């Protein structure tokens, strides 16, 4: 079964990069421009994994995590945080908020795919 990825980022560049990498890896990728749209997409078509940016207008990445984790359906879906922040306290914050893992930007194609595989159990 094809892994469905939902990528949420306000940067068009990053969204397209994630989409390209995910699709090249054989995953299905849906995009959202900000947290609010991300949560809407999540409900419309529940993905197998969410990749979200932190700094976004309207609703940030923490908002996305708490909306998903606080929801009733698919609340335990893996959520990966895509962040330029490598500071440990920010990772701890992401984890405390309920993130499954994180990917530090600039990300490496192989890395992001392997992390997605790792948290979804998808085999190469």
């Amino acid at each position, binding site marked *: 079964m094809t892994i469905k990825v939902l990528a949420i980022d*306000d*940067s*068009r*560049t*990053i969204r*397209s*990069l994630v989409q*390209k990498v995910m699709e090249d890896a054989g995953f299905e990728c849906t995009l959202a*421009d*900000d*947290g*609010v749209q991300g949560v809407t997409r999540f409900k419309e078509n529940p993905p197998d994994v969410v990749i979200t*940016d*932190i*700094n*976004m*207008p*309207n*609703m*940030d990445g*923490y*908002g996305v995590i*708490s909306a998903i*984790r606080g929801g009733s359906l698919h*609340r*335990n*879906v*893996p*959520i990966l945080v895509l962040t*330029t922040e*490598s*500071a*440990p*306290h*920010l*990772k*701890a914050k992401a*984890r405390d908020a*309920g*993130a*499954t*893992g*994180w*990917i*530090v*930007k*600039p*990300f*490496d194609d*192989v*890395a992001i795919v*392997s*992390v997605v*595989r*790792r*948290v*979804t*159990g998808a085999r*190469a």
Partner: protein
Amino acid sequence: MSAQSSIRDMFFEESEELLEALAEGLAQMNAGNHDDETVNAVFRAVHSIKGGAGAFKLTALVAFAHRFETVLDEMRGHRIAIDSSNLQVLQRSADHLADLVEDARTESDASSVQTEGFLVALDACLGASPGAVVSEPDEPFSFAALSLDLSDIAMPAEAAGQHFRIEFRPHAGLYANGHDPALLIATLADLGDVEVELDLSRLPDLPDYDPAKPSLSWRIRLKSEVEETVVQDVFEFVEGLCDLDIKREVVEAVSEPAPQPPMPADEVVVAVERTDLARPAPVTPKEEGDGAGLTESRGPKPTLRVDLDRVDRLINAVGELIINQSMIAQRVQELRLATDADVVTHVEDYRLLARDIQEAVMAIRAQPVKPLFQRMSRIVREAADSTGKSARLVTHGEGTEVDKTVVERLADPLTHMIRNAVDHGLESLEGRIAAGKDPCGTIHLSAAHRSGAVIITIRDDGAGLNRRKILEIAKKKNLVSQDAELNDAETDALLFLPGFSTASTISNLSGRGVGLDVVRNAVAALGGPVSIASNPGQGTEFTISLPLTLAVLDGMVVSVAGQVMVIPITAILETIRPGVNDLHIVGTNEQLLSIRGKFIPVVDVAKGLGFTRPANHPEPKTLLLVETEKQGQCALIVDRVFDQRQVVIKGLDTNYGAVPGVSAATVLGDGQIALILDPDAIANNRVLPLAEARTAAKLNEERKLAVA
């Protein structure tokens, strides 16, 4: 184009938008708006540029954006003040960031030499915040490699060698965060042979069982030659969400296999920090959760990105539609039906619909002048800096929309005029103080729609034009005769003459031998005149008037030597039927029109284009008074004026090349091809190079080629 390079293009396109958002946000902060959302938006703009730049390994850009972002982060955390000196640093840093983006796009490093200076200024801002820590984006925090490349790792494990004993007891939070112990164990299995033992000892008896409380744990034995950190990395994301104990054991063997080398740093795939998470962080960031509210939606309106070529194809098709509509209208008119006949009303509806479609399609190409205006505040800052003046830019009507091409081609002339306004328009600092003015000069830049045109004005509150000096210089440079007596408007117009410069020393700003004549020509190329108004002591105002679109034109349809031609309405001041006494012959062939006490040169369009009227052709009687850029007013002789109508401009350049005196062509309602005349060129070269007896037949043939 590869996907990578198209995403790269997208990055630069997006960066332009982010730089605009940055400029906009800074302008708001400058205006005293320091609310969290404004500062956050500024932060996000820089942050997103940094994020994208990182993806393309634009290190210079990333490094600078990072420091810039650090300052903004301190500001949004209220740890450093948003005062005027810090804002100034931010604005210049934004300018520099724009330069670095441009450098990255053109793959140059022209601006990088200045980076150090800006970094120092940014650091100085941080200096005010004792708690601030500037971290380098690539600071050597401990990377550990994690790779699932099986070819590297899945070596057949020797009976002897390295083992890991792992005790793993998940907490509830591990499950809540979307982790699955089975996946973690599967990841371990990728590193080598695993033996897994499920520990049920903590499973309570059924009456006490609580499914929300995790009670399972696992003991895993992994036989693998990987570094211990690689095993730890498998549990990177679950640190703190489980009890974890990893012990490494080495079983000595007779021949020890060579240990696996650690992954080289450039294969780092997930950055991991071995920092104790319990340790308090040096900087306590402001809670970022404030963006979680749904109430604020300053996000952009939903948009659809369309290739410009497609829009232009659409515009072209609509042009054909308009032509088709006018052809049908003309045919119907020729039928001389009653005005209330069904077909007549339908044709009228068709005309209105076609007009609506045309306007809607043109609106697609329309863009607000805002980004262009925003760029100008930088020009004002730079010009003020290098002249030692103090100046600010105030803009009005930023939302005014103009055709994309017009916006693009307006950038250069506008830049020049803004520089001029600061450089020549504003007085020196001392001069302003002496005149009792605000030491900081103001440049007003405004845009507005007025009767089918866009009016752009650039107004300074400087000393106004020194007309005596202008006349003096013009005389010195032999631009006017020594005894010329000019009125104010004529004197002001001297500024537009080629080679005119009022600055006594050529400054590096508006000098360089480029004068207002270049501005005037650039604006004229867009179809608009430039005018000046000036009040001594109060300032100078330049006004540019531009057509809303470059695709259609209101024209007057005339006939010249049997040819139907179109003259742009904007150029025509009035239509005159001169009396016998109004025309005066001067010299051999020159004619002058006397009108309201003035003499105006008369140009025969037919002669100018090289047509010969047949011998029996009635003497032409109609004059069109036109305003030209270089010759002032001029009267064009045409044979007959038909009507005024909107025509769709069909360029000749691609099919035929530039024709002197002719700016383009169009197709009229009856299917006839008509040339659109350039009154300026006709007035300038009273006899054009193509005046060698060109027959109408030959011209017709050429036109068919051109419009095909």
